[in-house]
């Protein structure tokens, strides 16, 4: 037994008293420079970068539930940047770059694991689209290649090359594709932010947003009213509901997205594999469990219930891809609530209310953008509303001028 352990075993005080991850909760102050609604990955990342790069620390993160307990905990933790449009690829490539350094930056292991992501093409049209995505991705500094069936076989020997009688013609091999522990990302950001003076208030629900002359002056919560200099809304799954409190109508429809996980098995699958035609993506976690997910539910709903129909079709696709999985048992299944935009790109930046900033419409692609989203939103807030170039294409008014950023073809499973 190490001597120090024995020593602390006999002492009354805990050796790391001053090194707790999150400070004890306090009362709400009367005024904050910045109020962030939503204590998920995006919200805490925004607070972190505001404190770290812009010296703004009088920030309150107001979270209805607990830290990272919403979609931050419900996504399937895929990190990739092989999108279709130049706007999207530029944005997500920078996100992947930031992800790579996060463990070092936090001094906290987010279990970033760069395993590559493989998307399968079963039609000539998909091959053409993959060729385009390869070129766009490579142009903006990502690592993506188009590979043939022989290379796919070598990469994933257990894959059925003719799933559902749709032969695999080619694969989009995204070498930068990765996965990380999603909770740890939120915890790392929260720890870094609170150490710099940001206040994280859990179990604090915003019930109303107070506006005067088209400016936000404060928010009402279940723990009292606070005044604020500006508000950042980062509430995946309830964007329309919260924005409505500020009188803003959004181009969003909210759908459930279901996923599930099997019992753990020996390591057999290194890359993350998805099929564009079967609407299914499969990956094996570090613990050996197989996570799979697919498209959103067929109609909108604010509910995380699961349906047999969707689970059944998802399982059928997964078994087509990896037939041996038919013998596995399911361990858990769950759903998240996703705010879908009609062009499959997010809504970031200014809103019709002057000092109310939006970080919404994150549909099924929110986790992978957490670092860059925090960084750009922090820039936006610190500059008092000057929109960074990287997120300018994602402004909400793109819908008013019919300038959508169409990423529909680039979702891991078309929805």
């Amino acid at each position, binding site marked *: 037994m190490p001597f120090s352990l024995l020593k602390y075993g006999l002492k009354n005080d805990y050796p790391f008293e001053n090194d707790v991850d999150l400070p004890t909760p306090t009362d709400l102050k009367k005024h904050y420079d910045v109020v962030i609604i939503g204590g998920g990955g995006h919200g805490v990342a925004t607070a972190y970068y505001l404190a770290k790069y812009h010296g703004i620390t009088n920030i309150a993160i107001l979270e209805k539930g607990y830290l990272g307990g919403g979609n931050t905990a419900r996504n399937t933790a895929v990190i990739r940047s092989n999108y279709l449009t130049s706007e999207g690829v530029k944005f997500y490539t920078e996100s992947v770059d930031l992800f790579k350094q996060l463990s070092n930056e936090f001094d906290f292991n987010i279990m970033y694991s760069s395993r590559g992501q493989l998307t399968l093409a079963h039609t000539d049209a998909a091959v053409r689209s993959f060729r385009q995505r390869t070129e766009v991705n490579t142009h903006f500094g990502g690592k993506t290649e188009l590979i043939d069936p022989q290379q796919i076989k070598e990469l994933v020997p257990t894959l059925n090359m003719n799933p559902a009688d749709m032969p695999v013609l080619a694969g989009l091999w995204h070498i930068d594709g990765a996965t990380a522990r999603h909770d740890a990302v939120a915890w790392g950001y929260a720890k870094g932010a609170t150490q710099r003076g940001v206040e994280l208030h859990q179990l604090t629900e915003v019930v109303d947003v107070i506006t005067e002359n088209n400016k936000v002056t404060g928010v009402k919560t279940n723990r009292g009213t606070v005044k604020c200099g500006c508000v950042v809304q980062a509430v995946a799954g309830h964007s329309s509901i919260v924005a409505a409190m500020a009188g803003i109508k959004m*181009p969003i429809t909210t759908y459930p997205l279901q996923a599930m996980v099997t019992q753990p098995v020996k390591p057999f699958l290194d890359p993350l594999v998805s099929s564009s035609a079967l609407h299914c993506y499969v990956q094996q976690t570090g613990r050996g469990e197989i996570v799979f997910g697919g498209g959103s539910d067929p*109609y909108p709903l604010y509910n995380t219930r699961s*349906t047999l*129909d969707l689970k059944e079709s998802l399982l059928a696709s997964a078994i087509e891809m990896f037939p041996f999985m038919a013998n596995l048992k399911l361990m858990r299944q769950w759903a998240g609530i996703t705010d879908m935009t009609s062009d499959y790109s997010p809504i970031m930046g200014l809103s019709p209310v002057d000092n109310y900033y939006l970080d919404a419409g994150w549909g099924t692609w929110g986790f992978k953008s957490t670092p860059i989203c925090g960084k750009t939103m922090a820039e936006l807030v610190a500059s008092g509303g000057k929109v960074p170039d990287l997120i300018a294409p994602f402004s909400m008014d793109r819908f008013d*001028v019919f300038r959508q950023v169409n990423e529909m073809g680039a979702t891991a499973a078309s929805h």
Partner: protein
Amino acid sequence: MKIMNCPLNGPRNISEFVYGGEVKPMPDMVNCSDKEWAEYVFYYDNTIRIVQEWWFHSPSGYWFIAERHTASDEILKTYDPSEIFKERIDFEVKAKPAQEVVS
């Protein structure tokens, strides 16, 4: 299996139906502003309560209206659109036709 009551075909499996969006008044497409038209096409209430929605029974090609709660997923009522849309609306062209530019 979730069942929806189709006003034309009776109770059917929900997988036979396609969601068609919120029921909202269509602006006068000839004379409205771009903003008004964009709001009609892209913006939604997307709220949590009982809402009126368009639904489509795919096998029979029939559009109808359903009243459904967006959190409990309870379908309270389905009916033919003629219960709401009782008369035909013709939008008048007020703007002058574009004049030919003679250079």
